């Protein structure tokens, strides 16, 4: 007995309603909004050529040069002018390169970081953000997260690559194990640089609703005020020199990697106090940004003028 044959299917047709339908699917939790803000910050900053990519190029060039010095002048010993302290070029290249990553980081902080909040205030982007379910903390977290990612590419990636390069130059397992400490130290100094250049210019950008003035204030604080307090600290032999962010980062790097040579202005700074200064800067900056954004949100500003 043969199996029953299924009746052939008749022609079928469907008409779809192409009109607007309200989205009825699942929605992400409000706590994920900051990721959208962060991704937007990264994307818009990445698109800029000379504002971000050129600084990234500077960091890449620094990495190549420092790496080249490490490789080519590996065992060459350098001494200070008194002939006392010594180091190999391979050991000196990484801590001395921090100074250049700091310069690249400052460039990005000036051209992007110092105009984030002020640019949003002036353009009316606040209205777009806060007309949706974005809370002030989502905005701050998102902008900060975006800057951290961008800065990490400059301040953290480079030193980490150099640290691994230094490990790669080890001649035996013993030397490899002996230099393993470079990796966490590179991460530490990279993170510090990332945090400084992400948070402090962001705070300046929230203080004044004009991107150019906030940039000028940040440049004046970092360059002029920094140089001033550095000089003051040196002559008065006081702690005030740690308020210079560039020199503080340099001092921390040189101390972390135990480099006694060519310390320059950083040689006069107590690394512990420098670290405290950096962390206090970051903390105060975060507090300022949070306060300013909450205030702007509460007062309903942000309409395009």
């Amino acid at each position, binding site marked *: 007995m043969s199996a029953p044959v299924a009746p052939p299917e008749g022609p079928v047709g469907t008409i779809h309603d192409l009109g607007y339908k309200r989205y009825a699917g699942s929605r992400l939790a409000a706590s994920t909004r900051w990721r959208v803000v962060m991704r937007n910050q990264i994307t818009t900053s990445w698109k800029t050529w*000379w*504002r971000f990519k050129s600084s990234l190029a500077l960091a890449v060039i620094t990495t190549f040069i420092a790496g080249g010095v490490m490789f080519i002048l590996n065992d060459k010993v350098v001494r200070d002018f008194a002939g006392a302290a010594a180091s190999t070029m391979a050991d000196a290249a990484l801590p001395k390169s921090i100074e250049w990553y700091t*310069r690249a980081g400052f*460039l990005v902080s*000036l*051209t992007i970081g110092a105009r984030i909040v002020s640019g949003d205030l002036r353009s009316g982007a606040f209205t777009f953000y806060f007309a949706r379910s974005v809370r002030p903390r989502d905005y701050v977290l998102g902008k900060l997260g975006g800057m951290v990612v961008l800065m990490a590419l400059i301040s953290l990636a480079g030193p980490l690559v150099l640290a691994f390069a230094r490990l790669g130059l080890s001649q035996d397992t013993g030397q490899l194990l002996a230099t393993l400490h470079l990796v966490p130290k590179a991460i530490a100094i990279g993170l510090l640089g990332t945090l400084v250049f992400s948070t402090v210019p962001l705070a300046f950008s929230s203080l*004044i609703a*004009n991107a*150019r*003035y906030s*940039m*000028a*204030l940040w*440049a*004046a604080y970092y*360059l*002029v*005020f920094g*140089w*001033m307090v550095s*000089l*003051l600290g040196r*002559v*008065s032999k*006081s702690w005030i020199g740690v308020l210079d962010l560039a020199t503080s980062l340099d001092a921390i790097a040189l101390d972390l990697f135990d480099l006694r040579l060519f310390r320059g202005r950083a040689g006069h700074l107590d690394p512990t106090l420098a670290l405290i200064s950096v962390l206090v800067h970051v903390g105060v900056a975060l507090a300022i940004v949070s306060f300013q954004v909450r205030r702007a949100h509460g007062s309903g500003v942000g309409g395009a003028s």
Partner: protein
Amino acid sequence: MSDERRIPSGLGTTATIAGLTWMRLVRGRALWVGTLIAVLPVLFAGAMRSVGEHTGGELFGIEVLILAVLAPMLVGASIGEEIEDRTTTYLWSRPVPRWAILAGKLVTLAPLAAVLVIASWIAASRIAWDSWPTVQTCVALGAGAITISLVSAGIATLAPRHGMALTIVYMLFFDFPLGILPATLRELSVAHQVRSLAGTSPIETGAAAAAIALAIIAGVWTLIAAVRVRRLEA
């Protein structure tokens, strides 16, 4: 053409734009921010004095650094803001030569930068040394302010939206390092010429030569600005 339908002259336009720029300066925040920046060396001099130390050439170096921020903030930002806000459509659709619009801004902003930095230098010197600074150093700072303002104007017409930031970057990463090179290239540096004109440079070039060099640098960037602004489109 009747008197009511005449074309404004270049000088008249410059004067009108200068008046407009000044009005906006006074009512805006640029003056406050500029003054705040200019006060920094004064605070430094006071702090050094309070710890019983005397400043040397560092104070003058800080004033030169101030110029690298102040002049671009005033000039570069002013030009960039007009283009970004598109208020240039009002100016460029008027029957006025474009160089006069640029000149009007410069005659207000460049001297203002000079006045701020000279005032800062005088106040800081008085606090640091209880004496007036020399006329030569004041002239050097004033000339430096004017030159950097013109550099900023030139850069702002080349890259209107980022004139200020680019000028600061140019000064920090090109001009200042160039100025300490032990080579003839340092003559291209505004910072070096200012120090030479003031007589504080370790590499003596002579005040007259420095003044001429500043004039040439200023002239080149002014030419760039004048040529570029003619062809910019709104």
